[in-house]
């Protein structure tokens, strides 16, 4: 199956929830979805055995934009399907997909400690990378965190 065909299969699986789809590069497909639809879309991909979850990227769009963007990258061969979810910066809450893909635990823990995002329903919220004496409420990957101040 060609990369385009694989991407089309994936696109069809999540078409119901995708508000908009983009093709930034030939082997990529980005689907913008609502946070509430995340679990359903991931379940659809998992049930169809479409690729595997490669990682979750957290992006701080900045204080002015007031939003975080979470990118759930699914890979199948050369094809990469990204579910893009935007959540408000002042109330960063997103549903865990642990119930569907248990191996996501590490990525979710990383989001919790690095961005201060609340992941609802993930079983383990312990620190993974940051030291035990790292101050509470300081999230190093946010744009307003300056390493020089720390």
């Amino acid at each position, binding site marked *: 199956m060609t990369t385009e065909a694989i991407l089309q299969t994936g696109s069809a699986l999540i078409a119901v929830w995708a508000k908009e789809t983009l093709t930034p590069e030939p082997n990529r497909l980005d689907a913008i979805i609502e946070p509430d639809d995340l679990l359903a879309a991931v379940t659809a991909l998992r049930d169809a055995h479409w690729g595997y979850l490669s990682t979750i990227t957290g*992006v701080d769009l900045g204080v002015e934009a007031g939003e975080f963007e979470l990118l759930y990258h699914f890979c199948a061969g050369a094809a990469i399907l990204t579910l893009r979810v935007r959540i408000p910066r002042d109330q960063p809450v997103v549903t865990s997909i642990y119930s569907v893909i*248990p*191996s996501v635990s*590490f990525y979710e823990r990383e989001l919790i400690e690095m961005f201060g995002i609340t992941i609802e329903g993930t079983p383990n919220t312990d620190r*993974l990378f940051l*030291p035990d004496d790292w101050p509470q409420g300081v999230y190093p*990957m946010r744009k307003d965190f300056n390493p020089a101040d720390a």
Partner: protein
Amino acid sequence: MPTTPTQENDVFRIPIGPQHPALKEPGHFEFTVDGEVVTAATLRLGYVHRGIEKGTEGRNWIQSLYLLERVCGICSHVHATAYCLGVEKLAGVEAPPRAQAIRVLVAELERIHSHMLWLGVAAHEAGFDMLFMYSWRDRETVMNLLEGITGNRVNYSANQLGGVKCDIDGEQADDIRVGLDFLEGRIKHYLDVVSQDTMFLRRTRGIGVMTREDCERMGIVGPTARASGVELDLRVHAPYAAYPEHPVNLVTATAGDLEARFIVRVNELFESIRLIREILDDLPEGDLSVRVPRRIPAGETISRVEAPRGELFYYIKSNRSDMADRVKVRTPTLPNMASVLEIAVGHQLADIPMILTGIDPCFSCNDRMVAINDPSRGEQAWTWEQLRQYGIEYYR
């Protein structure tokens, strides 16, 4: 005051790490055991977290290259390659064919170096020091080759944005060929050892089995997944750099146990040697690099390369400045680490170091950091010659 092990709800927990002879890098595992059998496992990382991802946000594109190359000491070249390929894609330039071929050549030498290192470590975990000592001795060959090409035994710094820094002339090519002939003979021997030595097979056959379904469910990548029959190798399925011109044969096994992981990795060494010879015979002529603008156009890209341990994932976002807006690194060890916690349960404590090593973990990669050399501490800088003399004197 140490707690009596039996006080904690009658659970006997064995801590492995952060400092432990089985771990060459720091990580903290806690295995709950019932007699000798493991019943639960937890993991704590971050002992070598250096904040590299954050570090890239305050540095320009070229500085970040040197930072990212130091994510890992063993597979530094693949990190630089993934980053360079990504940035070049964003900038809309493409490195010349000769540069791409040299990138692949160094990457394959690095794979040989990494896999031989792993072979030694894994043998040591099983208490088979003979294989450990010999494979590390032979690894010196490939490290010398890398030093001949790039000037460094680790952190080769072969890449630059838009190409590579080092060229390969006829003499170096001959050196590499001689080194590879020697290594090929040795690796054949190691294949015999890991697939035939009955004592060693007692420790690897049928241990730590992962089925193909397990691997796909947990998102396992690299040789660990290929040992369970998952057909996933980015060099084959999403070829980058010079891999389209020099196709790779997929190496897989079906058993999914430790023995299969040994066999897959050793067989990959043969494939790497074949590939290096092919590239040396057919090295394209031309420039080593093209110019890359200082400011990279806005956009985001995903760059994936096959590190020795599996899929290395880079997400790079630019907002049209001379600095990256976000660089996300997902190293192959992180998804593979999840598998350790799962398959450890039900195994003997004695098998744990082997299972852990079976995925070829790299904690530095996982943690991604920066050790900043503090000039105020006034550490004395030694020249290479001074170090060498010191070594000779010391062991006289």
